């Protein structure tokens, strides 16, 4: 299997979850100056305040989402801007930008993918009462990290 075809359908031996986790940890460390711990997703119930979405198109198709409680998004904004971050708009903006950087960092770590995969600008959904439906089959992987003891879910949903 060549590197070119490899990223279209990740096989079990090409597990991308560790890459997604590393990409996430690096963004938190560089932008917020903190080392986030991985949590078991089943142990932490996510109160869906905001969900940021960044689309992937080209060689890699799908979406990267980042979901956390409203208060946690506010803490992320404060971590990025300091105490001047005080609005819901800044929390939404910060979450969208974090998701964007995680998606970008993830694809840049996949050999051969970054050249032929484009990112969308981020969008952010408010509220947790929604379900995500992909119109084509695919795979998904999720990592949940604890930021300030609150869970933040980062999910990669791929379309085959």
């Amino acid at each position, binding site marked *: 299997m060549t590197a070119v075809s490899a990223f279209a359908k990740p096989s079990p031996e090409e597990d991308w979850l560790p890459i997604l986790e590393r990409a996430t940890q690096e963004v938190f460390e560089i*932008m917020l100056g903190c080392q986030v711990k991985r949590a078991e997703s089943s142990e932490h119930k996510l109160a869906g305040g905001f969900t940021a979405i960044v689309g992937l198109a080209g060689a890699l198709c799908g979406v990267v989402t980042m979901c956390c409680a409203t208060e946690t998004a506010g803490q992320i*904004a404060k971590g*990025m*801007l300091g105490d001047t971050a005080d609005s819901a*708009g800044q929390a939404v903006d910060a979450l969208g930008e974090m998701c*964007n950087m995680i998606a*970008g960092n993830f694809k*840049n770590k996949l050999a051969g993918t*970054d*050249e032929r995969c484009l990112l969308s600008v981020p969008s952010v959904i408010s509220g947790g009462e929604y379900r995500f439906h992909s119109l084509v089959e695919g795979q998904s992987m999720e990592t949940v990290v604890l930021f300030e003891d609150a869970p933040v879910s980062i999910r990669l949903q791929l379309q085959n």
Partner: protein
Amino acid sequence: MDKITALIVDDSSVMRKIVERSLRQAGIELEKVVEASNGAEALVALQSNKVDLILCDINMPVMDGLEFVRQAAAMESAKGIPIVMITTEGSESHVVQALTAGARGYIRKPFTPDQVKEHVLPVLGKKQ
């Protein structure tokens, strides 16, 4: 170092503030900061502001950063203004496109203040 006017172009207001803070942490004294949320707004801002430095994202709505750099390069009022891209797009082809269009530097997000210093001071002709 003389005070400068910086044009920061990013669709994220949070990121614009982080870039501004990083410039100050790099020891760059800012007379004024002009903000734009996309390339089209940045072109308008260039017509009404005397700018010494441009920091620009790539993925933005309305007009992306690469198109902005191409159009700015053709503007008489923007001639000689150093442009540094700050973007999540880290591919070699994006770097080449940006530099070919006229950008003088390229910083990948996520970035540290030290990386901003490392890439911005040289294009301002300053030693680190």
